[in-house]
């Protein structure tokens, strides 16, 4: 790495007034042909390209992005990272990702600020308690560091939660995964982009896919706003727009794209040092390094690509926030925004081959894809390179919707953030 980042390189560059930093990634025009093209320059797409180059020695590849890299859900999510999922398949997938997160800054030589400040999930009724205990037991047997906390332990870990038994949704307990936490979302996209670029991957922004060219049952290339590009492997990682690309190839997916909103408060000095999630009242909150409270809201129930949701959702989320944290009443909402999330009926993703040879989809992450970014990229790269899934993503095939072998994460986590 000729352009290694460190405190020393910062000091060195300070002497030349930072005039000599190199581009984090180039901005090439597309070549005529690639061995593989990744459609979608979000975290998952860039990670896929990075691992294709790094682990599968595929260097003649490109990432095509309709807008700017990291501009979709990567740059809009609330950055929660955890792996305390119920089912074995999910636990395997997300813990694979979590293990990569733990060394990602060093691997990429880019500080993605992965901060293991813990994630707590709260129980508000007796069924929540059963569900969270069930999940904790499953996590323990799967080697995931989740523990169950009673109300006092919840209060101790996050003292600002209102644990009064008299509130509408009293805190009856919770789970804590200490290895879980948050990361700096933009840095993940930029770090993978820089890493991929250094291995020769072309990252092509402002390049929208217009159609997919097929020869019988195989793909041949893509028509883009920057011209036709030949390839016989296309990995689609287009999140909310997955169905749009699938429709180009004549495929239908079990997806609905819905608005998901989030908001931040004005920045304040440290007040909450962990991530707290509550499915029953639908509120989750953490505090960014900048000091903003980062609050996730829920999805609307209709399909929309407008990147706008309804105010009722935001209001409902803040209602819940004040139920659990009455001290935040005088805090102020600074910014609010929406993203488009592609949701599968079983709230689990698809990382899969399709009926068309050379066409692969990585989608359906719903409201919780950010946490999987490194694992998703790694496993999708494996699937594309070998034309076979890795054992960790075998369960996340498209065919499960035909056989009925769903990975239903609604059960223990109504919303799989």
């Amino acid at each position, binding site marked *: 790495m000729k352009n290694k980042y460190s405190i020393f390189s910062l000091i060195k560059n300070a002497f030349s007034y930072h005039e000599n930093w190199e581009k984090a990634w180039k901005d090439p025009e597309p070549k005529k042909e690639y061995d593989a093209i990744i459609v979608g320059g979000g975290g998952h797409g860039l990670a896929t390209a990075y691992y294709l180059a790094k682990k599968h020695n595929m260097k003649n590849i490109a990432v095509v992005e309709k807008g700017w890299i990291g501009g979709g859900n990567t740059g809009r999510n609330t950055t929660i990272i955890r792996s305390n999922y119920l089912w074995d398949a999910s636990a395997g997938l997300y813990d694979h990702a979590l293990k990569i997160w733990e060394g990602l800054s060093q691997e990429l030589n880019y500080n993605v600020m992965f901060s293991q400040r813990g994630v707590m999930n709260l129980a508000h009724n007796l069924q929540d308690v059963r569900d969270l205990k069930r999940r904790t037991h499953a996590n323990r047997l799967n080697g995931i560091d989740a523990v169950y906390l009673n109300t006092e332990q919840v209060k101790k870990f996050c003292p600002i939660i209102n644990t009064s038994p008299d509130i509408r949704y009293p805190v009856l307990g919770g789970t804590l995964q200490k290895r879980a936490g948050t990361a700096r979302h933009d840095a993940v996209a930029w770090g993978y982009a820089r890493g991929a670029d250094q291995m020769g991957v072309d990252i092509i922004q402002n390049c929208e896919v217009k159609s997919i060219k097929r020869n019988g049952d195989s793909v041949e290339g893509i028509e883009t706003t920057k011209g036709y590009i030949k390839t016989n492997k296309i990995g689609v990682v287009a999140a909310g727009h997955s169905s749009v690309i699938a429709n180009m190839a004549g495929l239908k997916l079990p997806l609905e794209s819905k608005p998901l909103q989030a908001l931040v408060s004005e920045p304040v000095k440290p007040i909450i040092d962990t991530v707290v999630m509550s499915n029953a009242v639908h509120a989750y909150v953490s505090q960014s390094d900048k000091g903003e409270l980062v609050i996730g809201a829920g999805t609307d129930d209709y399909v929309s690509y407008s990147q706008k949701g309804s105010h009722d959702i935001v209001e409902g989320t803040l*209602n819940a926030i004040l139920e659990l944290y009455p001290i935040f009443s005088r805090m102020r909402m600074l910014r609010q925004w929406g993203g488009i999330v592609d949701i599968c009926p079983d709230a689990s993703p698809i990382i899969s081959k399709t009926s068309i040879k050379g066409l692969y989809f990585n989608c359906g992450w719903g409201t919780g894809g950010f946490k999987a970014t490194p694992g998703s990229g790694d496993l999708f790269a494996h699937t594309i390179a070998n034309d076979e899934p890795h054992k960790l993503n075998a369960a996340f095939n498209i065919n499960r919707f035909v056989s009925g072998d769903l990975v239903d994460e609604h059960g223990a986590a109504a919303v799989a953030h």
Partner: protein
Amino acid sequence: MTKNLRVKTTKLIDETYKISFKFNGTTYYGYKGDTLASALLANDIHLVGRSFKYHRPRGIMTAGSEEPNAIVQLHNNTSLTEPNVRATEIEIYEGLEASSQNCWPSVNFDIGGINNFLSPVLPAGFYYKTFMWPASFWEKYEYFIRKSAGLGKSPTKPDPDIYEHRYIHCDVLVVGAGISGIMAAKTAAKNGFKTLLVDEKSYLGGSTIYQNSENFKINNQTSNSWLEKEINEIKKFENLEIKIRTSVAAFHGYNFLLARENLTDHLPVEQRKNKTRHRLLKIRAKKVIMATGSLERPLIFDNNDRPGILLSSAIEKYANLFGVMCGEKNVLFTNNDSAYETAISLFKKGINIEAIIDNREEIDSKLIQETEKNNIKIYKGYTVVNTAGYKRINKISIMQLSKDGQKVLGSKISISCDCLGISGGWTPAVHLFTQSGGKLKFRDEDQVFIPDKYPSDQISIGSCNGDFTLNEILSNVPNSLRKFLNIKKTDYENLEVHSSFNKSKRNIWLLPSDKVIGKTKPFVDYQNDATAKDIKLALREGFRSIEHVKRYTTTGMGTDQGKLGNMHALGIISETAGSKMGELGTTTFRPPYTPLTFGTIVGRNVGEYFDIFRKTPMHDWHVQNKAEFENVGQWKRAWYYPQNGESMHDAVQRESKAARDSAGILDASTLGKIDIQGTDASEFLNRVYTNAWSKLSIGKCRYGLMLNEDGMVYDDGVTTRLGENHYIMTTTTGGAATVLGKLEDYLQTEWPELDVYLTSVTDHYATVSVCGPNSKKIVSQVIPDLDFSDENFPHMSFKNAKIGKIKCRVMRISFTGEHSYEINVQANYGKSVWEKCMEAGKEFNITPYGTETMHLLRAEKGFIIVGQDTDATMTPIDLQMDWIVSKKKYDFIGKRSLYRSDTIREDRKQLVGLLTENPDDVLEEGAQIVGDMNKSPVEMLGHVTSSYYSPNLRKSIALGVVKGGKNMMGQKLIIPMESKQINVTVADPVFLDKENKRLNA
């Protein structure tokens, strides 16, 4: 002794009303009408806070909601505390206490100021490049980063204030009560439109209201006196509602706007009690007129952030509106005529102006001539290259600009000053317009974005539409209003307007310096300390998109959302990257326009109103009898009734035993009840339940299982045939609403040919369930006229009856396995019937039991609870309930899914009973079930869904789901807990009375 910098009373300031307030612990005085900012300036205080990253001293920069620097903490360490309040927005009141933020130990001496000296190694994005070694140290670095970040402090006590919401539906909403907004509101109201006019300030009239100058006249009156008359007139319209201190926060689709009306923040604290603090207005307007005005732009040059540097228009406003001078040695720096307006205003008030620095070389206008007449020195074609003074500006250095504006020439001239006004022209406030989905266009001649395409029925008028001069406003606004409101004429045709303003401007986004840029600090985003060199660094590193630059440098991400600097950031990007401004786009302006208090958004939906509980008609009885409650769905249900300090375990054991030994009574009112009528009612039930219904005779009850279309169990309950075409269905407590919704969906959209009508009657009936061997004796006393003999009234049947004059429906059904009756009466009789049963049951020790005992009793019988023993992955076959799935029926909801390749697998998870080796070991619900602990990884076969100690069987019982469990009867399995392993045996899930003898006992 602080100076008094008051110059003259104005209409806004009431000098007879003195107000004391504290800033950083020292008491100062101001007048009614002052903002905290104007009052501080009057006391010669400029240094208010420290910046986010470098902790540089910062002062008041503006006089409005765009303020990036002067943000304070109010009422520190009290329940009224509030961080990040703009000193320019808060009106002072007696007892106001404000303090500086982001500094320690004080704003005058701040340890964090060391960051300013480290700034060479802290360029944009430095944290992405470092803190990576050693890997385990990030969280330690992060601790210090977090501590130094943040601005104010979060409150730590609950909020004593109240907030509320109001819905407003109007024909026309006018946002902004400057001259354009006043004209619009009057025109709309006069033409009969129900109109709402809102403005964020405490007064009407915008900046024109203090424009008392011979240079700006309408019909031969100064513009402010003309506007005052207009304001007096609009107050007379009954169909016009005017709201001041009301800031529009968001402009959503379909002309839905949110505005915050501030009702008490300007009042002394003791006058706020029991008053609503903020009201969130939820406005649906048929038409929206945006008259949001424009914001003055700063100029970007080295060290342009020192306390004492203000927008030129702010200096004018403080002098004209608040009667305060910002400095005694003022210098103005401009690229357009606006600063000359300020100069003339200050001159008239006798405030000293040292000089005006103007970027433009060849300039001439009436304003400039007048300025020169007053002997104010103008440096034409000059730029400021640096400033000095740590906590207050004391000097500027200026140099001549080259012809192309890219370089500076000649030698430096120093001018000493204590206040510098900067004016970079005006930016239309299009934030709300773009929030609504509006598209902008770029106007090259004065480098502004103005509204282009409107996404809804709205227009922008006045300076937010790029009409900056009085002439333009008065000629364009009436035209726009006529067209938009579809009216013939306005009051504003043929006005005689006199304006001396010349529109010439020399726009240079980043002013040149005599130093290399790397040595300078030209701030673009003041609050976040993002400089022009940071933006250039981002571009150098390949961040091309405006969004990338914004995120990498944090430009525009402060509490002011970059209202001042975003345009310059765009300009610098386009110049550096060689792209055209119009093509670059803008960053997205995200709601809210100004930060909105959470409490305001939430309104009254706090505490007990957050989500209202539903309570049964017998609720008060349960409370009186010391029941503990369980929250189920929206309901409060009696959970158990502890007696004499009993533990929950003891209470449940006692209740469970009593119910089987003699009699128990349960409030079952929360179960969902759906009345089903119509000639096709039976056929409808056939299609929605897995079992057959056609042959159920009138007066009989049947248990039904409902699936989702994916074959998984969705709900269950007993349905009774009341008549030929009349059924009553019961659902689970939590599922009532969704079941009704689902049934309506199928009925209306898939099977519209069926003659069926569904009505929710959950709230209409109270249900008293009496069970146990003595239940018959008890209910016969309560309903003496009814023949309770087994022949007349067998299990799973129903009777209409009367208790006195009260009609009731009695079902003989059982969820406990005991002989049992459910009495349904009109809800308001529920409590009296309950009490009658208690009275009649006295001799039988009738024992009220709650949901916990109900769960225990049904578990003894192996009855499932949907949602507890099932999740969304269990089919009826998995539940070993094949008997309820009709093989004969052609179709029912979910049937096809039962025959998919995965759902027919034999080794799916199946419901079984579990018995512990040690009968006193009660399993934990949710615990996992394992066959072989030596396998790696451990294979989890399933989990425990329900578990109790049964007082009737005197042993622990549990239900669970186990892979292939159906064929594992008698097999030993393991429940691995953290500290031990518990051995269990797979058993029949029916633990008690397999022959159902007790039903007829």
